[in-house]
Structure formats: C-alpha cells, structure tokens
C-alpha cells in the first residue's frame, strides 16, 4: 500500500521536475559527497538473435557501401556455450555492485582537486582469487611455467614456481652486474656521469655546430648551381661536383669559380662534420674506467637500475625496479594459489559474443563475397574497471581503466554453411586473455577526446611534463595485454602474446578521410 503511494509520488515528482529542467550548477555538484547509485543486473540474459540488425556507414576504398549484418549479440552467464544455452548471469551483486557516482576530485590522487568527477565503475573485489588483476597475474605465471618447464599440470603452485624462477634469474643478473664493478655502483654511476660531461657532451656540441654549418654551405652551392652557365655546367658530373674542364670563351661560363668555391666549401663542411662525428663515436668505446668502456658501463648501469631501482638511493637491497615489482606480485600469486589449493573457486564470469556478416567486394576477382566473423568471449570478469570524467577549461577530460579477463576468446570465420567439423577446424582460440587498458592519469595526463562536425575525432594524452613525471612514473597504471596461448582448430599452437607495461609519455590520434 505504502509502496504504491510512494510510486505515485515518484512519478509526480518526476513530472514536476520535467518542467523545471536546468543543469545542476556547480554549487549543487559541489555538495555531492561521493554518494552514488549502485547497480546490479540479476539473472540477466540479453540476446539479439531473433532480431535482424544491420550496421550502416562503412564503405570500401571505392566509396561503395559495405553491408554489415550484426546477426547476433548476447550477454549471458558462463557456460552458455557461445550463447546457445540461455544461462543467466549476475553482473554486480549487493556486496559488489557496479556504481555510478560523483566523487570529489580530492579523493582521487591523480586528480587531487576540488572539482567533481563523474565515475562509472564496475564491481570491486579485494580477495586475490576474485580480483581480476591478481587472478590474471596468477594465470600468466601458470602459463609461463607450462611453457618454460613443460610441466602443465593444474597444480596452482606452478605459478609460484614460475614467478620465483623469474625473480631469482633477475636477482642473479643484478648480482652479476654488481659483482663486475666490485659492488661499487655509486662509483660506476659517478664515472659515467663524469665521462659523459667531460668527454661526450662537449664533442656532441662540436658535432652539432659542424652540422649547422652544412646547410648554409649547401644552399650557397645550390644558389650558384642554379646560375651556372651552360658551358660550365657541361664540365661537371652533376650537382655537387666541380666544373673542372676548360670553359672556352664562346661558352657561357658564368659563376664557374663561385660555384667551384661553393662545392669546395660544402665538401669541407661535410668533411669537418664527419671528422667531428668520427671523434665522438669512438669515445663511447675508448673512454674506460676499470677497463670497461663507457658504452658498456652505461648499458650495465641502465640494466641494473631497471632491475633494482636508482643506484643513488640505497646500499644493498633494491629500492624499486623490476625485482621489487615482481616480489609484490608474488604475494598475490601465492594468495591465489592458496585459494585454489584450498578448494575455493572463482565466481562465474560473463559470456559475451557477436556475429557479423559482411558483404565485401573482392577487387581481385571482381565479385562480392560474404565474410563471417564470430567473436565469443567466455568467462569474462571486469572488476576494477572504471571511467572517470571531469570538466576542465571547457574540455571534457577523462581517465579510463579497463581490466578484462576472459577464460577464452574465440574467433570463427566459417559461415552457417560449414559443418561442425569445419567450424571447429577454423576457430582461432586464445586462452587466458587479459587486457588491462589504462588511458589517462588525472591531471598529469588526462585523456582528452573531441570531435569535429566533419566527422573526425581527436584523442590525446598530452605530453608529460617534468613536474608531473615522478608521480606519473611511480603511480600511473600501465597498459598490458596477455594471451596465454593461441591455437587454431584445437591443435595448431601459435603460442602466447605479451605486451607488458605499456605507457605513453604522449599520444595523439587524429582521424582523417581516407
């Protein structure tokens, strides 16, 4: 009873506010304290299979339309067998809902300002078995173990062995470099800095100065070549060579000597540049400290620092670097392995898939053919993903972090006329697929997107500055893509694909008409 009255009032309130539409002003948004809306999709099934959907607007290079039929799109629960068994799924739960909220910028370390940030976020899980990022890390090392040792059993501790092996080999490498220089890494660092300042930089300036002399000399030579008399020109072997024959008095010998002097001068400038370079280049190999060349020292130091962090900071242990990162990841991998070992299972994921049919004009045969593309993701979890948007100087700035893990990604290209065996043989399957896409990092490098009415768009991650770089390198999330194994038809293994730790100091993408 009460509820019906409440609903009536709800609609009245709605109707009244319809008449008073105005955007929420800054003061009202300022009052939003991070509260939001929790969303749960319970026993959800979405399937477009009975509806015919056509996508228009794609053309080929000749400007003819490519008809794309989107013949299927489904979102169901894990175990739906590519959408054929209607299996309901829970997307978000009361304990772990998806949320839409307005957050004060000061609560987000990358933003750190009093503006309001609009956020749409997937659910959050902290236990490593369910946390997508942690679980994907375990799955990656489980695959590593299978590849490097050939032991591919389902023992969850294989992943721990694999990450231990990697940490140990990195530690050995670090110790080898350190030992090479008698553990005196500070001395190594100082020797490199001193050599670069005293030997390399001064000569680099000389090289740059010599290089600057070349263009004017070239231009002068070009100037006189354009004016060179035909008689004189005939005595050359082309532009850049001297006019070295005898130019008879009845021929046009205009500017012959000016041109020849210009060629000499140009060659002299090029020669001085080459000499300067030849003076610079060997210094990398010949300037030595403890009998090790500058180039080798620099390579060793860079390798040490990428493994162990800055040399200047500590003595002994590693402050930062790949070893520390792997050690932190190890504890998560161990937690996942313990969880699985004690019989815990991961929550079920989502199955998502789409089928497309394209009619394309084959330019080689001159006929139209139909391409089929069937993409299915199974056991998808997205927890930890979010999109954040905020306004800045009239622009819309954002931060996207998409964490997607799928048990498998399969792509089939055989149409409905194919038999089951043909479909099986033609399906490309990737297992243990993880995409961690991080674009934008608060105010240091917001993701900017804009469109033009000509149908073009521009996406930008602005250039990183000196003042932002430390916070960015230490805290900004990196993008990674990992596919454990790719096989065709179930037996033709193409192995794994890894793009680990991708980060942009700058990115700008502009579209244009083809």
């Amino acid at each position, binding site marked *: 009873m009460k509820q019906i009255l409440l609903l009536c009032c709800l609609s009245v309130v709605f109707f009244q506010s319809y008449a008073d539409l105005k955007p929420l002003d800054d003061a009202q948004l300022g009052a939003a304290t991070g*509260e939001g*809306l929790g*969303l*749960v999709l319970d026993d959800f099934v979405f399937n477009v299979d009975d*509806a015919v959907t056509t*996508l*228009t*607007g794609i053309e080929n290079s000749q400007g003819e339309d490519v008809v794309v039929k989107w013949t299927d799109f489904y979102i169901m629960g894990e175990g739906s067998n590519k959408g054929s068994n209607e299996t309901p799924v829970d997307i978000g739960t*009361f304990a772990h809902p998806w949320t839409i909220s307005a957050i004060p910028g000061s609560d987000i370390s990358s933003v750190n300002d009093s503006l309001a940030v609009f956020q749409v976020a997937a659910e959050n899980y902290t236990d490593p078995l369910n946390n997508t990022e942690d679980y994907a890390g375990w799955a990656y090392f489980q695959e590593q173990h299978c590849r490097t040792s050939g032991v591919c059993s389902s023992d969850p501790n294989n992943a721990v062995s694999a990450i231990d092996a990697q940490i140990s080999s990195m530690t050995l490498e670090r110790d080898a470099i350190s030992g090479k220089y008698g553990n005196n890494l500070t001395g190594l660092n100082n020797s490199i800095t001193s050599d670069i300042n005293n030997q390399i930089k001064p000569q680099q300036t000389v090289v740059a100065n010599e290089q600057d002399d070349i263009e004017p000399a070239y231009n002068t030579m070009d100037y006189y070549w354009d004016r060179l008399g035909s008689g004189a020109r005939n005595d050359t072997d082309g532009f850049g060579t001297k006019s070295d024959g005898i130019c008879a008095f009845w021929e046009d010998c205009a500017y012959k000597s000016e041109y020849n002097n210009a060629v000499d001068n140009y060659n002299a400038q090029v020669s001085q540049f080459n000499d300067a370079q030849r003076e610079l280049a060997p210094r990398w190999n010949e300037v030595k400290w403890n009998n090790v060349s500058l180039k080798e020292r620099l390579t060793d130091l860079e390798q040490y620092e990428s493994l162990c962090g800055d040399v200047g900071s500590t003595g002994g242990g590693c402050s930062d670097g790949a070893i520390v990162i792997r050690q932190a990841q190890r504890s998560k991998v161990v937690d996942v392995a313990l969880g699985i070992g004690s019989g815990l299972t991961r929550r079920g994921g989502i199955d998502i898939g789409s089928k497309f049919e394209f009619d394309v004009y084959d330019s080689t045969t001159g006929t139209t053919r139909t391409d089929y593309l069937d993409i299915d993701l199974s056991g998808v979890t997205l927890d930890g993903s979010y999109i954040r948007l905020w306004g800045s100087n009239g622009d819309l700035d954002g931060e996207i972090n998409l964490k997607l893990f799928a048990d498998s990604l399969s792509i089939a290209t055989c149409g409905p006329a194919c038999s089951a065996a043909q479909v099986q043989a033609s399906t490309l399957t990737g297992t243990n697929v993880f995409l961690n896409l991080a674009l934008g990092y608060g105010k240091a490098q917001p993701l900017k997107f804009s469109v033009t009415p000509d149908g073009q*768009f521009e996406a930008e991650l602005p250039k990183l500055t000196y003042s932002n770089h430390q916070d960015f390198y230490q805290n900004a999330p990196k993008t990674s893509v990992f596919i454990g194994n790719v096989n065709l038809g179930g037996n033709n293994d193409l192995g794994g694909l890894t793009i680990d730790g991708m980060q942009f100091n700058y990115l700008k993408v502009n579209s244009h008409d083809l």
Partner: protein
Amino acid sequence: MIYNVLTMIGLALITLSLPLNAEMKPLTDSALDNISGQGGVYLTGEFTINKNPGPLWATTGDRNCGSASDPKVCGLRFAVSVDGGGSEWYVLDDVSGGMAFEGLTLRTEFVAQDEEGNDFNKEVLKVGLPGKVKMTDYKFTFAFSNQGAWSDDAGFRQTDIFGIQQDGDITLKGNLIMFPTE
C-alpha cells in the same frame, strides 16, 4: 548495444510516467485493499517513435532521410554537447521505429543482508525486465555535428558515423536493481 538497452529502459521509464500522470487522483484505502499482488507495478507497453511524422519534419520535402529516388520521412533527433553548447555535438539522428514489451515490473524491496551475510539494510528499486522486447523497424544514426539542431544554414555540418537498423525480437531477461551507495 548496451547504449540501446539503457535507451530502452530510459524510454520505458518515461512511458511509465505518462499513463500514471493521466490518472492522478488519490487512491482511497478501500481501493487499495482491492489491489492484490506483490506491491509493485506490472506494465505492458508499446512505444513508437515517429511512426507518423511529427511536427518537425512532416513530409519528405521538409527533410529527406532516404534518397532522391526513395524519399523517407525523418525520425527523432537527439543532440548532446559536452562543451556547453559550443560546436561539438554528439547526435542520435533519424531515431524511429517501435518497441513493444509485456511484463516490465517495477517494485521496491527491502534487502537486509547481502550475499556474503553482511548487513545491507537498504530499500532497493527492482525493475523486472520484460523477457522479450519486439523491435519494429527500429533505427538510429550516430553522428557528429556542429550544431544541436538540424538547420539549413550554410554553416551547418553533420557527419554520420554509423547507423543501426533492427527488426525482430530481443531477449531481455532478469532484474535491474538500483540502490544508493555511500
């Protein structure tokens, strides 16, 4: 596609307001006693956009969304600007077609505990999805434009990025549950 779902739910909720608004009068206690059921609302509806041409483009002479040889009346146009109404507009153009569903339910529930046994103690709004939604010649085109309104000014530009046309039954099952979070 998700966009499609949210648009449908949004539009469905708009539809919800209209019939109730047409019959606003207080329900007496005796009338309420005669209502049985879950304490929610069960809806069946059909929502058609621009099935017959509207006030904006009454004929293909006003604006033609087909071709010269096959003229078509245009559908609805939505435009959103993210830069305060400047020249950067995202447009849903030529939106037309029908959606029909039966069995959309709306009710509130009190949930005491969440799935993990922790206290939850919130009233949630539960929208029961209708199971099947029938799309009849539903279509829209997504475009970028430099003005919100379609116009015949020389400076008006719009570029269509892609279009969707849909006809048939879509399965949409389950419940959409909403509640406040802190």
